[in-house]
């Protein structure tokens, strides 16, 4: 078996660092992310406040750590739900074929013609800012990619000899899908989910940056960047650190996705 490349492990380390920060946020961050101290607003990083303080004098490091929780939780939920919906609908289209396939594909075309970020943006805009609405809007845009991928693979696999054999042996459609087709989709689904994580984290932060994601009471990276860009001169650290956090986590998922893809399909590595 081919070995995984170093970039995969670098990615894993970047994800682990951020996850550690998210899980142990209350223990690592010595400050309450919402505690304000206006006398110390815009303060630069010190040994006390590692990433400085924001326009309210709140600790930036604590907000970055708690923001990692929101980003990771939202992204996991969105990617798992989108993959599950995509797996079911994509299998239906690919396996049943005929009118069901046609109907689903035309429906997918409509969603595909809509740039993902625009659809999520307009849905959140009309639904109002809340974590639930954010997840809903990103699932609506996220599942189509999975459905397309799964449909293609199912179409390709269902005519393989071993599937014909299983059918001849009397296996029903559910058994063929769950026992003979889905296990073969595992690899590409994991790759797609890894890239889905990075895309979702950027979309979520972007929406929060515009004030359309999580409600203002929840500390997110996007929101921190939004307040940071108004005080670029006084307190550049408020913009610098949350952005670095996004870059590290997204780069981590992209490296892992790339590494896994090369591993599963050595030809793509060229």
């Amino acid at each position, binding site marked *: 078996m081919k070995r995984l490349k170093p970039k995969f492990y670098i990615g894993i380390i970047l994800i682990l660092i951020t996850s550690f920060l998210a899980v142990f946020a209350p223990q690592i961050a010595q400050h309450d992310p919402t505690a304000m101290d206006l006398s110390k607003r815009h303060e630069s990083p010190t040994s006390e406040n590692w990433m400085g303080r924001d326009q309210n004098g709140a600790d930036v490091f604590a907000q970055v750590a708690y923001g990692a929780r929101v980003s990771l939780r939202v992204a996991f939920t969105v990617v798992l739900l989108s993959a599950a919906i995509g797996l079911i609908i994509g299998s239906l289209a690919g396996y049943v074929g005929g009118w069901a396939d046609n109907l689903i594909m035309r429906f997918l075309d409509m969603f595909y013609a809509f*740039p993902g970020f625009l*659809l999520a*943006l307009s849905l959140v805009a*009309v639904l109002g800012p809340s974590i639930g609405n954010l997840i809903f809007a990103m699932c609506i845009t996220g599942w189509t990619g999975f459905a397309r991928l799964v449909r293609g693979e199912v179409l390709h696999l269902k005519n393989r000899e071993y599937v014909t054999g299983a059918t001849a042996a009397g296996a029903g459609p559910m058994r063929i899908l769950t026992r003979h087709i889905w296990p073969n989709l595992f690899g590409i689904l994991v790759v797609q989910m890894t890239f889905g994580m990075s895309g979702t984290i950027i979309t979520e932060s972007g929406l929060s940056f*515009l004030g359309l994601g999580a409600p203002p009471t929840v500390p997110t990276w996007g929101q921190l960047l939004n307040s*940071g860009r108004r005080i670029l001169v006084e307190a550049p650290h408020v913009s610098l650190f949350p952005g670095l956090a996004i*870059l590290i986590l997204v*780069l981590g998922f992209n490296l892992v996705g790339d590494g896994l893809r090369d591993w599963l399909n050595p030809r793509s590595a060229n």
Partner: protein
Amino acid sequence: MFTYTLRRLLSALPVLLGVSALSFSLLAFVPGDPVDIMLGDQAATADKDALRRELGLDRPFGERLAGFYSGLSRLDLGRSLQSRRPVSEEILERVPATIELTLGAMFLALSIGIPFGVLAAVRRHSWVEKAALAYGLVGMSTPGFWLGPMLILGFAIQLDWLPVSERGGLEHLVLPSLTLALGLSAILTQVTRASMIEVVREDYVNVARAKGLRPFKIWFKHALANAMMPIITIIGLQFGALLTGTVIVETIFDWPGVGTLLFQAIQQRNYPLVQGCVLLIATTYVVVNLITDLAYAAANPKVRLG
């Protein structure tokens, strides 16, 4: 080519209908009464009724959709809530700024991504290829809403080389289009490199070499022409990201385009204007993809005859 064009045009029609229906249906997602949200709870009942009639909310959905399409055929998208001006007029005056920004970003993305990808492919395992691979990954992972403020901080505030924001001469265009271009330039670097690696192995490259053509000419003229297919495809697909990226980039740089208009409309709960902007962006994306497909078919007989 003619039949292919016709077929492709016809297949774009239902997609356009779907896209417009989707942007129109947005209002249905508003929790509660959209009129209450737009005007506020304290508004007079007469005002609310008037707006409800104007938006057709007193009529069934099907009738409203039909009204929307008949309005659309006359480019009538209703009136903007705050200014009371036609939505189409408000959007149209913002279009040039967004076109300027998008073209600027496309120019930068192509002039960074393609040469970088080509050089990485012809100098395998060199530092150029390593740099291109790193650029592809980091560029794809950098959010524009962070890069933008960082560029402002570095080039506008610290160095004072370029203006902080707003539209103006060419120097105003540099930072916003660079912010918008980074993601696409990273993807283009990756795709160009991968595509060129396949192409430079071909025999005609060796023949051209043997004939004594200069390597530079072989790479950028002969090989690149044959490596263009995946590059065209990815430009079409990524154009949607570029268009929607304008919402964030225009907001950061106070750029008076459709993106900031959409953002303001969302903040003011000006739903007719939101629908208009969403419709314009989505339609542009469909049309650009149509053009990409046609360009692709024109260059490749396998596609149009297959």
